């Protein structure tokens, strides 16, 4: 067993796991997984995960709680990842949590929000490949000052998406390693380290029959859609709605319809070259 710490800017998690599990988690959280020795003692941790070999697979325990089982290294790493995400959401306090990817573009955060299959990951991946700093994937937390918090991790890409990208573009960012059949971990080369003020919200819609276009959405029209991508608030719902209204009002909102990654990238590049105008 080896000891390590998952040190996101906040929160932090302690890990005890066999070497191969830590190696797998290192692919998912390349920026955040550190050896226990490199971490200063006494810093508070949100939870402790203990992973042991058990029969032909692995057993995950959190604190003194019950065990969950994974048959493979990848499965048990995924269980840790899901639990980290849950704990991140549970401990978010008054922060707005959105089901979105996020990148930092010229000092402002761009959220990529959408329902599953809409192209959140694909567009976040394209923006990272275009040279922008990665902020978050799947869960984006926005603090009371309207800043998107960094949550560095690898993006889980389908091999199909990666192949489609590589057909048109030379990959310039970080490495890729296998995650599961049909899935790879893609490591962003550049990750933002500090919260970045929210400036843009991108609402992608991937559809093989779509006519590619990027259009500005009026705040009122987009508000309900954006609210639909937020996780239910921990605190008062009315305050949450007000907070989301404030965020939406202060951001430029764009709907992106696209049928393939080449179109998405071309439209994004054009909009970014014009400063999203």
């Amino acid at each position: 067993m080896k000891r390590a710490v998952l040190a996101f800017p906040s929160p932090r998690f302690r890990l005890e796991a066999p070497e191969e599990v830590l190696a797998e988690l290192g692919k998912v959280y390349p920026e955040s997984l550190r050896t226990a020795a490199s971490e200063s003692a006494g810093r508070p941790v949100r939870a402790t995960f203990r992973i042991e070999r058990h029969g032909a697979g692995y057993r995950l325990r959190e604190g003194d709680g019950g065990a969950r089982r994974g048959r493979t290294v990848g499965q048990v790493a995924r269980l840790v990842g899901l639990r980290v995400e849950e704990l991140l959401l549970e401990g978010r306090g008054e922060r707005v949590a959105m089901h979105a990817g996020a990148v930092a573009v010229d000092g402002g955060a761009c959220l990529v929000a959408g329902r599953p299959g809409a192209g959140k990951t694909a567009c976040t991946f394209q923006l990272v490949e275009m040279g922008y700093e990665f902020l978050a994937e799947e869960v984006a937390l926005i603090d009371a000052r309207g800043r998107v918090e960094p949550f560095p991790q690898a993006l889980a890409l389908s091999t199909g998406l990666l192949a489609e990208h590589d057909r048109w573009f030379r990959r310039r960012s970080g490495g890729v390693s296998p995650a599961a059949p049909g899935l790879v971990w893609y490591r962003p080369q550049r990750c933002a380290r500090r919260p970045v003020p929210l400036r843009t919200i991108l609402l992608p819609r991937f559809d093989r029959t779509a006519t590619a276009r990027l259009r500005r959405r009026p705040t009122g029209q987009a508000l309900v859609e954006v609210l639909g991508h937020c996780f239910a608030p921990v605190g008062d719902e009315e305050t949450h709605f007000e907070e989301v209204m404030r965020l939406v009002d202060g951001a430029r909102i764009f709907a992106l319809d696209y049928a393939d990654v080449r179109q998405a990238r071309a439209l994004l590049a054009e909009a970014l070259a014009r400063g999203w105008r």
Partner: protein
Amino acid sequence: MQPPPRYVRSPAARLKRVGETAAVYVRSQRALHVLNTTAALLFDCLERPASLTELCARLGEHTDADPETIRRDLAEVLPEFVRRGVVDRVE
């Protein structure tokens, strides 16, 4: 003869304005409804109970639309507001 129904803002509904966006939050239904300019104006006019005729007159002071159009639009939108808990119907 029965008096015409009167309408008033639901105490559970609160108007939120941020920038140019107006929305009403209905606590009892845990819902947020975005309002366009006319709907926001109507919500303002419903601070005190009013009949359809009185509302037409109040809205007419703020819009250029002809009274018949206002009445027709209100007849459509008021039941929807009631259904969504934004407005109460008082007999």
